[in-house]
């Protein structure tokens, strides 16, 4: 009799535990599903974001002063609004580093609306010590850009891209 009662108590305990586990698992399933949904939306937004360097051109402003203009294209093909808060641009001539410049837009981030392409033109002021090198040019110009992209929910993420241009494709800009 006592053994039967003990077994009955055990079954009741086990049933109560299973009910609690069912509730916890159901709550956790909802949590997993909701997080996974956000995760996939973020993945799609990240996968449809593209950065590319479209064009380089340079201008000799005065004696020993040269400005290199880099046209960077941000293609936000996803459904989330994104923004760029910083960019580091490095210029290389025939694989040798020439000069670089940082751009900080933390106060006024560049907005990248969903399903839109945004072109940003940045100017690198090459110091007079390197101006001759740029004026001489090389066979191949290389620009590396990297920076911080702000994504909703995820916060800051790093982006990077590079553009390689044969010398004949690099335009010498005469102003205007």
């Amino acid at each position, binding site marked *: 009799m006592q053994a039967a009662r003990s077994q009955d108590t055990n079954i009741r305990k086990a049933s109560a535990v299973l009910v609690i586990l069912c509730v916890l698992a159901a709550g956790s399933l909802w949590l997993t599903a909701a997080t996974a949904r956000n995760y996939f939306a973020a993945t799609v937004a990240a996968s449809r974001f593209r950065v590319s360097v479209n064009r380089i051109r340079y201008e000799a402003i005065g004696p020993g002063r040269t400005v290199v203009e880099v046209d960077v294209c941000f293609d936000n093909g996803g459904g989330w609004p994104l923004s760029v808060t910083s960019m580091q641009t490095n210029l290389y001539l025939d694989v040798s580093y020439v000069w670089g410049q940082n751009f900080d837009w933390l106060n006024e981030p560049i907005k990248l609306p969903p399903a839109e392409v945004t072109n940003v033109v940045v100017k690198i002021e090459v110091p007079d010590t390197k101006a001759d090198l740029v004026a001489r040019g090389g066979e191949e110009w290389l620009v590396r850009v990297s920076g911080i992209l702000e994504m909703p929910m995820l*916060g800051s993420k790093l982006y990077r891209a590079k553009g390689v241009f044969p010398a004949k494709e690099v335009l010498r800009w005469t102003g205007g």
Partner: protein
Amino acid sequence: MDGRLRTVLGTVLAGVFMGGLFTIQAAPKLAPVRVLGESATVLVFIGAFVSGLLMGVLSPGITRGLFIAVISIVLGLAIAGVVLILPVATGIIGQIELVSVSIVERMLVLSIVLAPVGVLGAFVGSFIA
């Protein structure tokens, strides 16, 4: 319900429970409720203890309870891993990494740390039972 079936069902349910906690711990900013994301690591520890405790109550014998507590953590880890790896497996990868290798490493280290917590829960649970 058969005792073995009950144990298996309990282990699977505990694994699903831990899977949700591991998922929000890996991607706290993507949690549907911000508070849950912010306290994800604490929740994972509490979750491991609670699931261990419940498994200890559910299954007769301390050894079995301890073993099941660890299994439920591993199962939870596997579920979270599948969720995190799906975009990579389906080929949706962009220029930006959403889940870095360090997050996956942190999750694995955490699971190792959690095993004794789950075992402790199972130990307490087996005494309650």
